[in-house]
């Protein structure tokens, strides 16, 4: 009996080993292949977007009045109330918690600088401040993922049409606001889709043409163009800007280590003067 069992085990084990040898091994999916010298050479053919780009805030101000999104009826009432509160000196904290402004609101209402990096297969946008702002736009031909992984800036894929970068973005967190000022905007509530055409309108002027589809808050797609200008000669580089530092101050703990401790703020986010 014991020898028969042993024989069965041996047969099963050898069959399994044979199957393993005959089954083709699944190859890992390479999504970031090592760039070639040609990939790097091709970057030189792209337009020059180097330097520090700042938003044209006066144009943001103008569009907040002259080019409002086609809010649906419910949201329009909320927005009307926000404008009234803003005017009354009780601005709503759209960007609470130091979360990123997110896409597309970063492009729409930021007050801070950004830089744009070209590397093989990718365009990267880096924000100067306001909570870890970063956009990766894949230009390597990949599609959006089958399984959504929502994020503040969504999943962006792009392609070059001449000197224009055409970007398609999905999978943005439903909590990400669609904002037209720092105090007026509502969460997109899901299913938002953003397309962009980004190009140099002049030597030091970058245009970002956006078309935003947000079916849960808008009645139809909204088009807007946002303007960034380049500070080429300024002796100033983009810097790290950690939003939450504004809520802390430097201190020493009981062991003498340098630490940050929370400070008091008002309900509007203002600092409180010492008594």
């Amino acid at each position, binding site marked *: 009996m014991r020898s028969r069992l042993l024989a069965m085990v041996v047969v099963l084990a050898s069959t399994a080993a044979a199957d393993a040898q005959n089954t083709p091994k699944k190859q890992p999916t390479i999504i970031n292949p090592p760039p070639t010298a040609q990939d790097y050479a091709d970057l030189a053919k792209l337009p020059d977007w180097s330097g520090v780009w700042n938003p044209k805030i006066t144009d943001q101000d103008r569009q907040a009045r002259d080019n409002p999104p086609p809010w649906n009826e419910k949201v329009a009432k909320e927005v009307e109330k926000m404008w009234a509160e*803003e005017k009354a000196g009780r601005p709503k904290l759209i960007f609470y918690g130091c979360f990123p402004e997110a896409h597309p609101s970063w492009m729409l209402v930021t007050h801070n600088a950004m830089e744009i990096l070209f590397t093989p297969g990718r365009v990267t946008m880096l924000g100067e401040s306001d909570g870890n702002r970063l956009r990766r736009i894949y230009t390597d031909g990949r599609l959006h993922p089958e399984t959504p992984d929502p994020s503040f800036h969504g999943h962006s894929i792009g392609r070059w049409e001449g000197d224009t970068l055409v970007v398609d973005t999905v999978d943005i967190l439903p909590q990400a606001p669609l904002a037209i000022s720092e105090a007026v905007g509502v969460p997109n509530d899901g299913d938002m889709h953003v397309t962009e055409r980004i190009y140099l309108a002049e030597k030091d002027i970058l245009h970002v043409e956006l078309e935003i589809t947000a079916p849960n808050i808008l009645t139809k797609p909204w088009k807007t163009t946002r303007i960034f200008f380049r500070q080429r000669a300024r002796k100033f580089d983009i810097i790290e800007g950690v939003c939450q530092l504004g809520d802390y101050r430097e201190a020493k703990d009981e062991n003498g280590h340098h630490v940050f401790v929370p400070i008091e703020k008002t309900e509007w986010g*203002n600092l409180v003067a010492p008594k």
Partner: protein
Amino acid sequence: MTNHFKPIGVLAVAGTVAVGIASVSAHHSTTMFDHSTTMMINGEVVELRWVNPHVSLSVNGVVKERAEDGPAVWVMEMTSPGNLVRAGGWRRDAVKAGEKVEVLFSPLRDAERKGGALKKLTVLATGEVFTANIREQERPGLE
């Protein structure tokens, strides 16, 4: 291309969630300041906090328009360090604790609070002037 985003599980929270009051970390609008009013404080710098998203300057002094209050510490808010560098020529050591300054500012609408939005800082010992209008950086030729 179509959007294939689908909510992948939303926690049903009973009632409406009040957002933002307890957690005030934010870069915010500035309409809590009365921009139609300008006040002036003369005093000594307590601290320049060179941090995002809003640099702040604390000054211990007397506000001319509220002289009856006597000396007190007022906190002035501004835009981010990067924007102050670009728009107002600021730097981290633009002003130091103990220096005598004059500050023009728009006060908080809530008169109970000693805060304001800084419009112009003059360092009295050197005469250096720093402003904080974020839109100034759009001026052509500004370097």
